[in-house]
């Protein structure tokens, strides 16, 4: 086998057999554990009172804002990974190019900061 497909054969084996390993004890539980479910037992925990409404309600938009800013920087990180490997060969020019790229994104971060996207309130 060639090198790179073999790399991912290892990863696939870990993923598949890992899921199997995670699923296997459930067979033991199925054999050993008692089973008796009634509506009161299945109530979700809400400090001892009967749960009020569904948990699938609206939640605050601030989580979404952090997600958006993260997405921007995560893509930036992906571009930097190959850059780190070849930087030594490409020299100063590659550094200047990455500097411009990062400065543009840093301006974006400062904009989000000024706009209050990074405030929890």
């Amino acid at each position, binding site marked *: 086998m060639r090198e790179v497909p073999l790399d991912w054969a290892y990863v696939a084996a870990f993923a598949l057999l890992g899921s199997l390993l995670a699923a296997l004890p459930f067979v033991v539980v199925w054999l050993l554990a008692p089973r008796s479910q009634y509506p009161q037992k299945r109530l979700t925990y809400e400090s001892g009172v009967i749960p009020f409404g569904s948990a699938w309600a609206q939640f605050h938009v601030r989580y979404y804002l952090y997600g958006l800013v*993260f997405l921007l920087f995560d893509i930036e990180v992906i571009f930097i990974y190959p850059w780190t490997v070849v930087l030594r060969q490409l020299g100063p020019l590659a550094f200047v190019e990455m500097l411009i790229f990062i400065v543009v994104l840093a301006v974006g971060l400062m904009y989000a900061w000024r706009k209050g996207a990074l405030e929890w309130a």
Partner: protein
Amino acid sequence: MAEVIRIVLSVVIVFTFVAVGVALFLVLMERKVSAWVQARIGPRHVGPYGALQTVADLLKLLQKEHILPAGADRLMFAAAPVVVAVAALLSYVVLPWGPGVIVRDLGVGVLYFTSVLSLEVVGILTAGWASNNKYALLGGLRSAAQMVSYELPLGFSILTVATITGTLSTVRMVEAQPYPWYTYPSVIVAGLVFLVAATAESNRIPFDLPEAESELVAGYFSEYSPLRFALFQLGEYGSLFATSALFVTLFLGGWRGPFELPLVGPVVDGIFWFLLKTYAVVFFFMWVRWTYPRFRIDQLLNVSWKLLLPVSLANLLLAGLLIAGSG
């Protein structure tokens, strides 16, 4: 054929190690360390010095009933703990245990490592959402916000080392490290940022907002009963060990020790030093956990976005400047 045998063998060895040496042992270690910090004794009845306590716990968990909470999303609820556990297991593919002792030296090593570890947040968010419990949902959302925030400084500090060593492979990163220590100040800054971000990534105090027990019961796994709870524990401690091992690989010289052990040969020597250093880093994380109080969530996010992110970004550029100038 030889490769198939090697794949199966490495899976068996690594999974056994993760189950015994990481999940069972680290839970016991956590309890002993917490007892030591709080001047208690800790578990001591099951086995010599309580050494079999977590084995007994596991046997108990196997006999407990599974409860599906009312109104929960059945499929997502069952899938979430498996995703968390498998994500942690996947990261062990690229850990270099010793010279030549690695499951597979992927060319994209550290990139692969960060991407599979960030899969964990998918499982946690799914768990929080699928439980149909308000505490769980809040825990899952906090976890998502926290883990994506700290992934960036973590990524930038890994990139700093990648820039200086000029490779993404974990093996070559260890080999490229000058002995005994880096002379670049950037690496020290990157190491400190990595330590803080790794604490947050593994949801540990002072960054354990997703499972803050005094406000959110148990956060995203409030509704999880025995075995699925155990899978979350496996994932949590599995990734704690993997992150500590990556810290050792990137910053502490990997498998290389201060002196060679007599008579055992380079492989055993390498594994010995690697495990010793990794467990020392794990101990450090536990020590911090039982010493410090918890951050508030706005403080937590400010540390990441307004301190660690600019610092690690500037640090990366500094390292790049040094390398581009010297190359």
